């Protein structure tokens, strides 16, 4: 009897979480659509890398692990990961604005599912990032990227999961710091080394032993390597499997951390 009641409550909770997630997701999608300029400007920096830096690499040519004939295949996955790192990294600022305007508190007094308050936002951020990534990929193809379609799709899945993780972590950091003045320096302190250690611009296989070893402790390295392998069409290679494992683990841990923080009272 009690078990049945609990199961019913659990099912209600799930239905409520899904319904609320959709409502929160739509709220923030509408917010993003009101600010189309922001979506486009988020693309400017990776596009600049692509246009102003990419051609240099094709001169360096067959750098180790760069994928032989088509250097774009090695370069574009790195730029995608960079887009995820910086694009999703900054979403915490939106939460700080909502904390300040009282929106967070207003929503917390409603019976809304606490998990939905996180998931709705994070899914919006992931969607925005995938849209940006597709635009970036179209530009890359125009510039000379040649890769199997399935490879690109798998690469996109990696980037989407990465964006989901980074957005969750960005919200956790924003919740902890609560003001831009503390959040901004913390964010750049965290993202810059992560970007450099992930081998976004040049593959880490070119790094000296110590640097290569350090980079193995950062998750993005595996994601970049996996996306590169996918772009080459090596779906069953070790980097893709490793990358898939690391990306899924990162997503689970990040969302769990975010959920814990959002559930916590007075968060």
């Amino acid at each position, binding site marked *: 009897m009690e078990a049945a009641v609990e199961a019913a409550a659990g099912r209600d909770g799930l239905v409520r979480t899904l319904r609320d997630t959709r*409502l929160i997701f739509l709220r923030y999608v509408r*917010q993003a659509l009101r600010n189309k300029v922001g979506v486009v400007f988020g693309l400017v920096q990776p596009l600049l890398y692509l246009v102003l830096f990419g051609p240099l690499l094709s001169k360096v040519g067959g750098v180790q692990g760069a994928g032989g004939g088509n250097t774009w295949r090695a370069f574009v996955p790195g730029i995608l990961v960079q887009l995820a790192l910086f694009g999703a990294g900054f979403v915490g600022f939106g939460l700080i604005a909502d904390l300040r305007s009282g929106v967070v508190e207003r929503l917390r007094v409603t019976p809304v599912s606490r998990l939905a308050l996180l998931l709705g936002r994070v899914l919006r951020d992931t969607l925005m990032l995938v849209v940006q990534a597709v635009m970036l990929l179209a530009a890359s193809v125009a510039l000379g990227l040649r890769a199997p379609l399935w490879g690109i799709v798998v690469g996109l899945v990696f980037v989407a999961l990465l964006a989901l993780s980074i957005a969750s972590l960005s919200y956790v950091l924003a919740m902890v710091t609560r003001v831009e003045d503390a959040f901004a320096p913390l964010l750049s302190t965290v993202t810059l080394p992560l970007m450099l250690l992930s081998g976004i611009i040049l593959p880490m296989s070119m790094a000296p032993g110590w640097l290569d070893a350090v980079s193995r402790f950062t998750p993005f390295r595996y994601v970049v390597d996996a996306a590169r392998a996918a772009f080459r069409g090596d779906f069953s290679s070790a980097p893709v499997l490793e990358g898939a494992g690391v990306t899924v683990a990162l997503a689970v841990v990040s969302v769990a951390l975010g959920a814990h923080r959002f559930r916590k009272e007075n968060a």
Partner: protein
Amino acid sequence: MIEARGLARTFTGKHGTVEAVRGVDLSVASGEVVGFLGPNGAGKTTTLRMLTTLLAPTAGTATVAGRDLRADPAGVRRRIGYVAQGGGTDPSVPAREELELQARLYGVTGADARIDELARRLELDGDGLLRRPSAAMSGGQRRRLDIALGLVHRPPLLFLDEPTTGLDPQSRGNLWEHIRRLRDRDGTTVFLTTHYLDEADALCDRILIIDQGQIVAEGSPAELKRRVSGDVVTVELGASGASPAQVADRARTALAGHPAVREAVVLNGSLRLTVDDGERSLMGLIRALDEAGVELAALRMARPTLDDVFLTVTGRSLRDAA
């Protein structure tokens, strides 16, 4: 509607522990408008945040709108509305979208009709107002939108945190009207915090005075004022020769034995007397001061206000404390 016992909250931070609220007992009956009056930092907002499930109490129990605060916070949330001090709207989101989201989150059926009804009642129905984001609204309109958001699900109990802070006098009066109507028409219980005496006086059936995290007095505005029995005479003293403190002391000694004087307090260099039948005893007071050689600069007499109540209860002026 609200029944709280020993509610307390302690914050532990870098600068040690702060007991923001130390054991608050309160009862609010259905259909009452109750004001929580106290200076800034007295613990009003902290108490409100505990009663609205935003903050877990460190001690104590409470039943809010028929649900246990600790055991069933979700049940409390479904039955209360809360309007925070700074409001809760995104400045860029059109008002109607905010109301629609709020209605869906509460699972309100017939949300559109409910939103139109609220807009009509709270004078938000003019001129495409709901299509505007809150950034494009006046302070009074934004406040009424905040209240509409708190009322969307027809809660029997509404919490308002400093509802008129920052509003111009006209908007304040208008908002008071709306709050009164909530009770008169729908029987909504309203629990509000304020540090404005006139607001508590004009709006509340009952007032709880909170100071330093504890309730120090409660009653209807009239009852509270009756506690300050008699009239309040403020004597400003001339300060020739002796120091102001000495003069004030001498004045107090001179009047302490006077039969009409119930209480004499020195406050900011003037003497504040609580006297029976002020109009008649005034002449005698002046004579007594004159005999004691105390020079008078000015003399004022007033019926007691809530500020006098606060002063009597805490020994400080609400204005100074705030």
